Structures are given as structure tokens and as C-alpha cells.
């Protein structure tokens, strides 16, 4: 498999509101998405997953690190080249109410990326828009309507049509179904899986909903306070998690059979603030397996049982000689 996008040591630090400290929103993230693959990114609010999405699109510039997209240094691209390259990476946002311009018709919204990139004639763009509407399961009479005339699920279909208009290679989906009702969620998830197959897309699927991520992803990365703490095949990471944080996340999903789960790990405390990242392993204040070493040494992401995990439980540190 060939890597479509690869990030190495990607970080984004912001000055805190009072200017006295740093908010480390994303902190040394390594990731790879192969052609045709879906990488799921899970984590709680403030873990940096949405900042990571914006970094990968270069909607914001990283503080440090590297992004290689299609074999090319993505961060070295100048303005014009970047705009060209962005045809290949598109994003679908969480809130279908906030991400569509209320004053534009659906036809204009979907055609806009084609116009910006100067693709086709006005007639061929029209045809393309119709084709896209059909692809995302919307009626052609939607064309002259405005976003407010649609339900949340339909708006998300419009957002998806806009994102795939340029035939991108990678689509970043940032909580694409979180704002939708369950029965509508499943319609959109089915659509996304269908489009992936038909158009040969790769996805980065960002969500806090583990069940949704497990369903759509090949590979899953779990983020905590700006770092990936566990990563591997979806079945493995979410089926037999290694990191105590992933274990707690997985056990927090209520069972759906009306029977209570045998053991539930309830994490104490709140998701901490990226402005005050604990020393050593950032998870140690909430970890039930905490050891002496944890507050002192940051565990790195290392191979373990076919995946990667950043936890001292699994790798003993090399003794000093």
C-alpha cells in the first residue's frame, strides 16, 4: 500500500489567553493514511483532533513537523501550488447548519469549488452538479433551493457533494454525523461508505463516537491531550484496547442489549486542559494503572501486539549504562 498522506512530528502550539503559557493543542503527532484506507481519529473534547484536521489541510500552519501528501512536501508548497493541491484534500464539517452559506443556492454551493478551480464550462459544471446531487441522493429540484429549506441530514449530503466535487483523493470528515439523529446518521454513514467505494476515496474520520469510528475505519488512532496514545487496526484498538485510556473509552460505551456490562471503568476527573498538560504521561492523573515512572517520563508510541501504544505498562525503559 502506498501512503497518501503522512505526518511526522506534527505540532501546533498557541499562546494561552493570558500569554503566559503555551497551549499544546497538537503535540508531535505521527500518522499515515494509505490509499483507499479510512483512518479514524477518536478522542474527547480538547484532545486536538479538530486542530489536527485543520493542520492536515493547512487551514492553519503547524508550529513544527512535516506533512507529505502524494509524495510531495505539503508544507513547502507556495500559495498558488497549495491551492492547486487542495483539490485533492477536502473537508466535511460537523455542523451542517453553520458550514453552508445561507444566501447561496444549492447549485451555487456545489458548483463553487469547480468555479474556483476553473473547471469546465458553465454548462458542464451544471451537468456535474446534477451528477453530484444524484450521487449523494438528493433530488434535482434541490438545485434552486437554499440551505434553510433542508433538514440536517440533507444539508450534510450537500456538504458532502461540495467536498467530492473536485474528485479529491482524501476527504477529512470532522464529526460528520455528530449533529444528526440516529436514523439519519446511518443514512449518511451508508452514503460515505458507498462513495468511498465508488470513487476510490480515502478518509480521515474524526469522531468522539467510538461505535461510529469502529464501523467505518480500517485503522484507528486514539488521541489524548494532543498526542496519539494508541493506534492500530480498528478491530484491535477498539476490540482489545491496550492503553488504559482506550480501555476506559471503550468501556464507557453503553451496551445495546439492555444488559449491563460486567466491568465498567469510570475515569475519575475531567478531560484535562491542554493549557496545563500533566508531566510525564499526560494521562497519569486519571489512570488506574499509574506507576512511579508515569509522572516522570513521557511514554513514546511504540509497537506492541501489532499496533502501537504509548504506555509504560508495555515497554520497560532501557536501563542506563
Amino acid at each position, binding site marked *: 500500500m502506498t501512503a497518501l498522506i503522512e505526518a511526522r512530528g506534527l505540532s501546533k502550539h498557541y499562546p494561552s489567553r493570558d500569554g503566559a503559557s503555551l497551549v499544546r493543542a497538537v503535540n508531535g503527532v505521527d500518522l499515515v493514511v494509505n490509499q483507499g484506507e479510512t483512518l479514524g481519529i477518536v478522542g474527547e473534547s480538547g484532545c486536538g483532533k479538530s486542530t489536527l484536521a485543520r493542520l492536515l489541510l493547512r487551514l492553519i500552519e503547524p508550529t513544527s513537523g512535516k506533512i507529505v501528501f502524494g509524495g510531495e512536501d505539503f508544507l513547502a508548497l507556495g500559495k498558488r501550488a497549495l491551492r492547486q493541491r487542495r483539490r485533492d484534500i477536502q473537508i466535511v464539517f460537523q455542523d451542517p447548519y453553520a458550514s453552508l452559506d445561507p444566501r447561496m443556492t444549492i447549485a451555487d454551493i456545489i458548483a463553487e469549488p469547480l468555479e474556483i478551480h476553473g473547471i469546465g464550462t458553465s454548462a458542464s459544471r451544471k451537468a456535474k452538479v446534477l451528477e453530484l446531487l444524484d450521487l449523494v441522493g438528493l433530488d434535482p429540484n434541490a438545485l434552486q433551493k437554499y440551505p434553510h429549506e433542508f433538514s440536517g441530514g440533507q444539508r450534510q449530503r450537500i456538504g458532502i457533494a461540495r467536498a467530492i466535487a473536485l474528485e479529491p483523493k482524501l476527504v477529512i470528515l470532522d464529526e460528520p454525523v455528530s449533529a444528526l439523529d440516529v436514523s439519519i446518521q446511518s*443514512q449518511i454513514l451508508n452514503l460515505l461508505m458507498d462513495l468511498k467505494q465508488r470513487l476510490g476515496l480515502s478518509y480521515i474520520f474524526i469522531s*468522539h463516537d467510538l*461505535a461510529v469510528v469502529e*464501523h467505518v475505519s480500517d485503522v484507528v488512532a486514539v488521541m489524548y491531550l494532543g498526542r496519539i496514545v494508541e493506534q492500530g487496526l480498528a478491530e484491535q484498538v477498539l476490540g482489545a484496547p491496550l492503553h488504559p485510556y482506550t480501555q476506559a473509552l471503550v468501556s464507557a460505551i453503553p*451496551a445495546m*442489549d439492555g444488559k449491563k456490562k460486567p466491568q465498567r471503568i469510570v*475515569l475519575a476527573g475531567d478531560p484535562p486542559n491542554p493549557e496545563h498538560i500533566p508531566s510525564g504521561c499526560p494521562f497519569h492523573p486519571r489512570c488506574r494503572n499509574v506507576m512511579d515512572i508515569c509522572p516522570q517520563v513521557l511514554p513514546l508510541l511504540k509497537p506492541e501486539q501489532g499496533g502501537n501504544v504509548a504506555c509504560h505498562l508495555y515497554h520497560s525503559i532501557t536501563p542506563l549504562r
Partner: protein
Amino acid sequence: MMHELLLDVENLSVDFNTEKGRVRVVDGVSLQLARGETLGLVGESGCGKSVTAQTIMRLLPTPPSHIAGGHIHFEGEDLAMIAESRMRKIRGDKIGMIFQEPMTSLNPTQRIGQQIAESLTLHRGLSYRESLPKVMDVLKKVGIGNAVGRIDQYPHELSGGLRQRVMIAMAIVCGPNLLIADEPTTALDVTIQAQIMELLQALQRDLNLSILLITHDLGSIAEICRSMAVMYAGRVVEKGGTAEIFATPRHPYTYGLIGSSPRRAKKGEKLLSIPGLVPPPGQRAKGCNFADRCPNVLEKCRSVAPDLMVMQGREVACWNPIP
């Protein structure tokens, strides 16, 4: 098995005045909640579950809302009939309520301790100083440590999970028998959701509290509710024991709802989905509201709306239920 009923909602209908005239939002809903039990009311946006809850609490202003019919029996009174002055004595004292977004339900300019003490002042006539021991005690009950330090804090100084705990503390400080929880964990992270669900369960056990949990999340219903009612477009379509409904949903809508969850599906497989959209209030047909989306639809469904019918230990409103 059936304990004494604490809350018995009987054939409740609620109308709203809109630009297009009077529209029925809740249509003949009946719910029973026994003392010390938990009932889950589940449904998607716009199904009328929150309006039902807010009507039980009589929180909706009239106009635009009207109770168009039915009864809300609670501890020997009919909340649908009593005067607002009487309701004010029940609200916050005998029935507590928590909402989805603690940040918008708490007063940002008032300290936590004062907000919790408010209902003690209102219902028990206690001064702030007199209510402090109770406030400390309830903070402990909801799992907030360092109560002395917390009471002088403002809501913005707390995390989402703590704010939700404060809301719960406010709701239970007078020792109500009924707690109405309207999407109490929807705005919270998964690990915090788990904390709040555990807390609600513990409170129910320790205080013999009855909980009416309103949510769109089938998972949290499965977790803490012994019985459940499924609402669709203003009506209850299925009602019964949670485990039984999850095992063998009878109403095609319940079946679709449970099946749409990726938690149930095989990986990568197409999820069950319900085509179409919920008909908005005012555009509901005279037959079954689900008929246009239903795979089991019959001729009859389009003309006559089915009432809840008893079927193998549960109630289902369907002419052609799943056997």
C-alpha cells in the same frame, strides 16, 4: 411486579399556536412510572419527548402551548389541572429537573452555593446560612469533593461534568421523589457521560428516586432504564421492558432505530436506515405518522392511526407489527 405509580401520564396532548394555526405536538401520550423506577423516553429530534417532559413540569408558557387534553397524575394531584401557584410549590421540591446544557441552565452571575440553596429558600424558607449544611451534603451526594471551596465558585470556573453535577445537586436538594432528566449527558464527553450515568444510578438506588430519562441515545436507556417508551412524531409507538424491546422490537420504527446504530452492525456492512424524514408537526397525516417511511406499511395504515395495543407483555401502536 407493578409497584405503586408515582407518575401516571394519561392521554396527554399538547398543542402549540404557530403562524399556521394550532398544531398538535404531543398526541395522546400515556406513560407510567412506578416509585423507585427509571423510565426511558426515547425518540429523535422533534418527536415531542422534550415537550412531554416540559409539560409534566409545566414549564411551557401558555400561549403558545396548550394542554389540549389528558391528565398528569402525580402524588394524588393532576398537574395538568392545578393552578400555577400550586405548581410552583411542586416544581423543584417534589419534582426536580436537569437539562442538557448545564452552562445555559445555570445562572452565570451567581455562586454555586447560592444557586443550590435557592430552592431551599423558596420551599423551606431557609436562609443561605441555614441551608449551607444541606448544600454541603448534597454536593457530597453528587460526588463533588471540596464542597467548601466549590460553593463560592461561579459556573464558568467548573468543567462541563462538574456543572452537570451542580445541576443534579440543585434538582435533588429538596429531596424530590421524581427526577426528570432531559438529555443529561448529550453535551458531555464519553468518559464524563459514564460518570453522570453512574451517578444517576447511584442516586436512584440510595434515595429511592424515580427517574424519567429523556434522550435520543438508546445506549443510555439500555444502561439505566428498566422500562422504556419510544416516541415518534408526537406519539408513543412502543412501550415495555427495555431488555425485551431491545431483543425483539415490534414496531418497525423501533426496529429501524435500534438497527441504525453502528453498535449493533457488523463492521463495514451497510447500516439499517430509515428512509425519509420525520414529518413535522402540522404536516402529519390522519393515518399512522410512520406510514410513509415504513417497510411494513398496509393500506389501513394510511387512513387510521393505530392506538397502543397490548402485544406479548408490551404495547405497540402498529397495524402490522414485527411478529
